[in-house]
């Protein structure tokens, strides 16, 4: 029986082993993240069926949950960690050849650490442990953003770090306040005792945590770092940041709000915040000329929609949110990866430099189009299934408040369609400029085509057969919604 702890332990070990491997063989070192993630993916997938029935609880040092630090590999956690591993794996493969400059050894270590952090966040059952993994994720992403050491990267990294550090501090204050109130750090334990303690202190701690995690989750006023960081980082990093890292922040918020506090009073506010985030993100994305910045703002928009769906507090809504996390993760990773080599090819991040790319890089362009269509929520791609689920959930609630919000939010989808289809037009229907310097190193190698192609295939496949993922969504939603069950599973009887 494999234990979920392997999902964290093995990559962590491999991460620190990487420099040593590098001593032996530099080329072998490049494969370490991929190996780690492959392992994670296999383990997560093998655990998933079991976790769908009941969460797998891992107790450290054999102590009972309230006292020990424990992992709760529930359906949601394992589903997300599989997603993390999958995207991590594909991006790692991509990164084998993509990363050409800078300190390669550190990239591999930091990259693995980032994913370990993300995996830890979704698997842990302990609030402080959540914070620790969160910091692992954050610190490695600060470093990765600035990894290239160029002006923009360093500036973005610096700004990201300042905001992130303040956010982390807020989280820590929140945890401290909560601990001071209930005297425990196990989420299940807190959850069981939160009901008895009411009042402002609890809420203020929640506010601190939302504000803190919100920075990483890119909620509306807190997301200023994101476009800078995503656009300045190497494309592979942008892909994981967008596909994985911000989702971890959102997961943390959801977990705290639903499981730990059961705070349903704040949900309408979160829904409004989500819609505002969606609109602001899409509006800003529309006005961009820099392709990566555009994708980054589009991520903000999608995060807003996910947050909105999470705030619905219905099983379908949360299924939709999780589904959108998956579909957005796949699509946005695909977009960033495809963009990476296009930028290498043209040496420019301007959208207009993509003219005629459909001819020069047909496979990349095709995959990009698939990803863009999926993000817009066009059938038969996976984005449609997820957005459809969300809309269905909203109308299922029958609440005028949510339906109005959704109607406003759908305007964001229209804007999204406008700018993505404009890019598709640039790719396919604008003639390539004459006398474009053909950069041979811009040709996408197999290590780039395989992950990109695989992502595209996944998007279409899941889009056509949403049942593949759909089975896991219900339990994942229950995992978040059903506090009593969660407490019961973790604490035992």
């Amino acid at each position, binding site marked *: 029986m494999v234990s979920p702890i392997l999902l964290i332990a093995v990559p962590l070990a491999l991460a620190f082993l990487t420099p040593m491997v590098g001593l032996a063989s530099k080329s072998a070192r490049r494969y370490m993240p991929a190996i780690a993630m492959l392992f994670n993916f296999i383990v997560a997938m093998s655990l998933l069926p079991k976790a769908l029935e009941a969460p797998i609880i891992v107790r450290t040092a054999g102590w009972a949950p309230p006292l020990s630090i424990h992992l709760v590999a529930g359906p949601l956690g394992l589903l997300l960690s599989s997603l993390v591993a999958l995207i991590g794996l594909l991006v790692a493969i991509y990164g084998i050849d993509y990363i050409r400059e800078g300190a390669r050894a550190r990239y591999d270590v930091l990259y693995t650490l980032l994913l370990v952090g993300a995996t830890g966040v979704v698997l842990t059952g302990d609030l402080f442990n959540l914070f620790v993994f969160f910091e692992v994720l954050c610190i490695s992403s600060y470093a990765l953003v600035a990894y290239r050491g160029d002006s923009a990267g360093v500036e973005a990294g610096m700004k990201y770090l300042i905001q992130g550090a303040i956010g982390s501090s*807020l989280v820590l204050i929140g945890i401290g306040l909560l601990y001071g109130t209930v005297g425990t750090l196990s989420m299940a334990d807190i959850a069981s005792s939160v009901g008895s303690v009411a009042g402002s202190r609890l809420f203020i701690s929640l*506010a*601190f945590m939302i504000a803190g995690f919100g920075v990483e989750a890119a909620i509306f006023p*807190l997301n200023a770092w994101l476009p800078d960081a995503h656009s300045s980082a190497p494309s592979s990093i942008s892909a994981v940041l967008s596909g994985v890292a911000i989702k971890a922040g959102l997961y943390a918020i959801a977990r705290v709000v639903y499981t730990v506090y059961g705070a349903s009073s704040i949900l309408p506010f979160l829904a409004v915040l989500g819609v505002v985030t969606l609109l602001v993100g899409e509006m800003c994305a529309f006005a961009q000329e820099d392709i990566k910045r555009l994708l980054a703002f589009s991520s903000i928009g999608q995060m807003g929609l996910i947050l909105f769906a999470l705030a619905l507090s219905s099983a379908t809504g949360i299924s939709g949110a999780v589904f959108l996390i998956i579909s957005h993760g796949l699509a946005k990773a695909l977009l960033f990866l495809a963009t990476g080599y296009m930028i290498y090819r043209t040496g420019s991040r301007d959208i207009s430099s993509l003219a005629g790319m459909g001819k020069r890089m047909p496979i990349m362009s095709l995959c990009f189009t698939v990803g863009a269509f999926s993000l817009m929520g066009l*059938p038969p791609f996976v984005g449609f299934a997820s957005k*459809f689920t969300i809309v269905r959930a909203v109308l299922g609630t029958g609440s005028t408040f949510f339906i109005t919000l959704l109607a406003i939010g759908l305007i964001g989808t*229209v804007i999204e369609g406008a700018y993505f*289809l*404009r890019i598709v037009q640039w790719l396919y229907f*604008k003639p390539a400029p004459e006398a474009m310097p053909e950069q041979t190193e811009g040709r996408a190698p197999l290590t780039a085509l395989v992950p990109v192609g695989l992502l595209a295939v996944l998007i279409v496949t899941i889009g056509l057969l949403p049942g593949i993922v759909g089975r896991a969504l219900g339990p994942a939603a229950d995992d978040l919604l059903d506090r009593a069950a969660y407490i019961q599973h973790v604490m035992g009887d």
Partner: protein
Amino acid sequence: MSAQGILITAFAGAGLSYALGLTSARLREVFAIVVSVLLVCLIAITHGQGAEHVYYPDFLGLDLVLRMDALAWFFAITVSMVGCLSVIFSLHYVRGKEKENFYYFALLLVNAAMLGIVLSGDLLSFFIFWEIMSWAAFLLISYKRGRALDAGLKYVIMSILGSCAMLLALLYLYANYNTLVISDLAQQIRSAAGGFPLWVMLAFALGFGIKCALIPLHTWLPDAHSEAPSPFSAVLSGILIKMGIYGFILVMYGVVGLKLLLEVGAPWLHFHTVLCWLGAITILIPTFIALLQDDAKRLLAWSSIGQIGYIMLAIGVATSLGLAGALFHTLNHAVFKALLFLAVGAVEYKTGGVRDLNRLGGLIRRMPVTFACALIGGLGLIGVPLTSGFVSKWLIYKTLITEGHPFLALAALVGTWGAILYVYKLLHNMFLGQLPEKYANLEAAPFSMQLPLMICGFIIVLFGILPGIPLSVIGGIVGTLGFEPVTATLTGFGPQIGPLNTLNLCAAFAGVLLVIVAFRGIAARPKPVSQDDSYAAGAAAPAGKYHHTVRFYDPLERMTGGYLRDWVDQFYLSAAGKAKGVFNGVRRIYTGDVRTYVMYIVALLTFLIFAHTAGWL
């Protein structure tokens, strides 16, 4: 052959044609034609079948259903037929141009998606196919680059907006009736008591109205139709916008049902009445705008909007004759608008992309077949007796007059007279008059371009003389949608519906024609003269352009041109410009100064705490 087989053939055909195109261009062309013809045959043999079956159980918890009934069959055969003709026409049209593979793939995909729409038995698969159609059409509209790109974007943005509205509406239905299968839905809605929410109908109307270019949702159409490649313009105008019509009929009569529909809306202003008046406006304004166009395809595009007005008017009036007229006119418009677009496409193809009505002329001498077919199409569009357009318009007028809507009938009739003007302008400026010297040696369009034209022309005349053939199908459909069935004889209608006998008319016309020709034969045969031998007050006619085309309806243009600008489009464009400004303004919140960002964090935190103390949260 089940609906499922048809769809598999259609979608697989699209994919395979792309794959085949990678190996051989010729193979792909043959294959594309085979698939399209096969589809027509497959659909034709399913005539009269009624079936409904689940083809995809449990898609996101919903069963996807395919359905074959009279209505679906009627639209499916129209779609496949026009699709097939446009594929045949495309053979020469796109040969040698770039991205042929993509072109065929997208064209077949659009056709397949449209088949999917009409064969869908539930609203979810309807929506899915609808979206596939929308984006595939977007790709094809953008195909010609240049201004086509803006046209494509305009189309797709409006289309997405419509889809969002539709999605809301159909999921509202799901939330309330817990099913999206059309037959179940109809059952449940009809048995449910109470009114039907207006906003659901409005949301559906927004979605369908955008697609079928109902004023004021029409602004994408003139751009898209004129900038798309001509065979696809035929598809766009012939059948793609008819999907909106299909949606209206399906939702209004197939789902909501006649009885309930008549109650939707305020007691003094019913939903269907509003639709009627919108239809009337949609007839009038675009018809007059079409008069003033100089681009052949733009003229036809505006005319398409005008004709959609007739169909909407007939649907909205909610009578059995009206619905029959709407369905028949849908078929007719598909055929003759496809014909006209293809004819313009043939001219465009031969003259190297000239669509400007002021630069053409005299092509009847070089392309007589194309002209003859275009003439038939034009006459059909006007609704001249002995063309199919006459019978459908007759039905519409008849129901409007007998139901007591003379003002609506006036709009429809005036629209017809407008149609005469723009059809004449189109035919005259392209085919009649003096042949420019540079086209003196133009060859006729290749046979693959003429064949679709001839088929369309034949259908128009056939259905014009024997309208009973399509009306027997349409009468049955009207019956299934909760109306009194329309009984037509082979050649028209009996006295209970109204006297109309097209065969008598045809015979009389033919007889008179024969007599006149015989009478004419008494005189000497005329002496053919060259086009330069024309009366010019004794001078020799100049060799350059001599006949009158530029600003053909100048007096009217001077009188009404000021009022006939597309205000709606201007409004949308200015709104889009404003929105762009707003978007640009919104992103200024990301100032680049990290301290502002920190302030945002603190502000949110403070707000949360403040809101809590204030008791909001």
